[in-house]
């Protein structure tokens, strides 16, 4: 294991924060206080945590995200309380309550946004990679996209564009089993995403998305190769999401007990705990302490979001242009 104790604790904190953020949103959404659509990332934590920990904290490395963008935002380092206010549509939200869950972003730290358009982020990552190339920052652009986006023309064009210019892009397919209600095993023609990437001349690898260590190993290797000037890489991360496509989705398209079994036997946080406890690398106390700290943070975030006022009506027409 090539992570030290501090790095392991950071990774665990990241995954636990994502899980508690999403589980809590699931409960809060049911109370009717959260407007709009919310797409939750629970079950996919090892991807955001395992990949993004290899990126630099400044804006030179970037992340383009998906409909399911809370996890990536947390892993990049977005302010969790400001995120919660954003999702509640309140003053002080990360995007001043103009974006909401589906457009949450903090470009100042390289988080280019969740994206309401399936596949919308892939070409943005090519642009961020062009910036890195032209300005010679050494930056890497990570493009997360789902199994639905893998069949979008924009994604395929972006992969070709990244290849022909050897752009520093890591394409990360987060295959959570379903594009809305449609099974990825059916919708991805040819059946093997790694082969599809190979068709573009992009080297790829399939990774078990429940296994943080497998994800972060693959991502570390790919990002190093990209930084060394090797051009784009591809990772196919395979897992299942725990909740529906959106909150309120009855998920009748899923087999009975699929999620129950997934949670019971293949939960990425449980697997992480088992691994580090078995090797006596981290203590149970240290992990439990993180659980408590994260629980407090999420409680405070929800309390503050609920108490925050709605945004001023005067902001309806601001921020359309820099100048007009």
């Amino acid at each position: 294991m090539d992570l030290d104790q501090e790095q392991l604790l950071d990774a665990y904190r990241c995954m636990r924060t994502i899980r508690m953020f999403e589980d809590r949103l699931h409960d809060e959404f049911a109370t009717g206080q959260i407007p709009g659509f919310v797409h939750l990332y629970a079950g996919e934590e090892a991807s955001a945590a395992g990949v993004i920990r290899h990126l630099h904290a400044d804006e030179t490395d970037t992340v383009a995200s998906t409909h399911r963008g809370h996890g990536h935002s947390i892993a990049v380092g977005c302010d969790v309380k400001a995120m919660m206010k954003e999702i509640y549509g309140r003053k002080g939200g990360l995007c001043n309550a103009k974006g909401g869950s589906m457009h949450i972003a903090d470009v100042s730290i390289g988080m280019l946004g969740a994206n309401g358009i399936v596949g919308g982020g892939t070409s943005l990552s090519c642009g961020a990679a062009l910036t890195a190339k032209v300005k010679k920052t050494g930056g890497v652009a990570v493009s997360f996209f789902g199994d639905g986006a893998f069949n979008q023309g924009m994604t395929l064009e972006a992969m070709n564009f990244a290849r022909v210019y050897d752009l520093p892009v890591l394409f990360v397919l987060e295959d959570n089993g379903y594009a809305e209600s449609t099974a990825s095993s059916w919708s991805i023609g040819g059946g093997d995403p790694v082969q599809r990437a190979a068709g573009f001349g992009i080297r790829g690898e399939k990774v078990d998305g429940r296994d943080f260590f497998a994800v972060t190993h693959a991502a570390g290797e790919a990002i190093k190769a990209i930084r060394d000037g090797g051009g784009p890489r591809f990772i196919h991360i395979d897992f299942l999401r725990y909740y529906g496509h959106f909150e309120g989705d009855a998920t009748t398209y899923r087999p009975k007990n699929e999620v129950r079994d997934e949670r019971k036997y293949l939960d990425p946080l449980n697997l992480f705990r088992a691994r580090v406890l078995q090797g006596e690398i981290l203590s149970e106390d240290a992990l439990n302490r993180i659980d408590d700290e994260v629980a407090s943070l999420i409680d405070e975030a929800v309390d503050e979001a609920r108490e925050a006022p709605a945004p001023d009506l005067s902001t309806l027409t601001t921020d359309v242009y820099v100048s007009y």
Partner: protein
Amino acid sequence: MPVITFREALNAAMRNEMKRDENVILLGEDIAGGKGAGGQQDAWGGVLGATAGLYTEFGPDRVFDTPISESAFIGAAAGAAVTGLRPVAQLMFVTFFGVAGDALFNQMAKFRYMFGGKTKTPCVIRTLYGAGTGAASQHSDCYYPIFTHVPGLKVVVPSTPYEAKGLMISAIRDDDPVIFFEHQAMSGDKGEVPDGEYTVPFGEARVVREGKDATVVALGRMVQFAEKAAEELAQDGVECELLDPRTASPLDSDAILKSVKKTGRLVIVDESLPRCGLASDISAIISEQGFHTLKAPIRRVTPQHNHVPFAPNLEQAHIPSPEKIVEAVKSVTGGK
């Protein structure tokens, strides 16, 4: 003053800005030409030659020929702009907006608003438009109203080489995404253009000609048609005040209102289509805000509700002509 073509004026503007600011890059299909081929590099300089020589001068790290992948490279322009470059990307013909629509309408136009004003997206999308070259339905549209409809985008429609150079320099320096419309039938049009750098402001109409009898608003190629019409009308004693808004978004509606207050009559000449077009938009604004100053109904001179046809006689019948403008002005000035 030097006399140069529209395309040379654009070229001078882009060269000036690329020299001035190393963050300015060019992206597009064949903007150099010959990428990866065995022959000459910088073979085309764009489909009508507006970027000729820039690849040779600034090199492959500033000028990027792209595969025919509008989704990828217009999206990349948005992503590059939001991360610190000032890309100038060419969407070859505006009719192709559909294959890059997401990047244009959902990404670059919305970033600033969706992200609560915490970012900017300084990019220019150059695009060819307009009828008159026999290119027919899929290479001739005047889709500037579609972009004008979308908040977050600025829309520039220059009418002369002088305007083109100054507006392009303004566009590249602007911190918002700008859609820059270049009429394909005007690429070789010549005009006086100063050598040095200058800017033409957005949202300020140009008074092309002063007059007291009727206000004529025209933009892009229609300005030269309206000028011809105004000259003919002047011989009959009808003095038109001709305004060129220069940018459809922002629109200088104040200048139009002020002129209509003086003349009491408004004719709008627009090469875009009549339904939800720019003439309809201006007509609505003036009806709402200046109805009491009007002495006659507003007239729009536009194509009809059809696509751009191929046969030369049909194409000419489609485009607003000086004759149609004369007829429209006479209809509101009482025939004199």
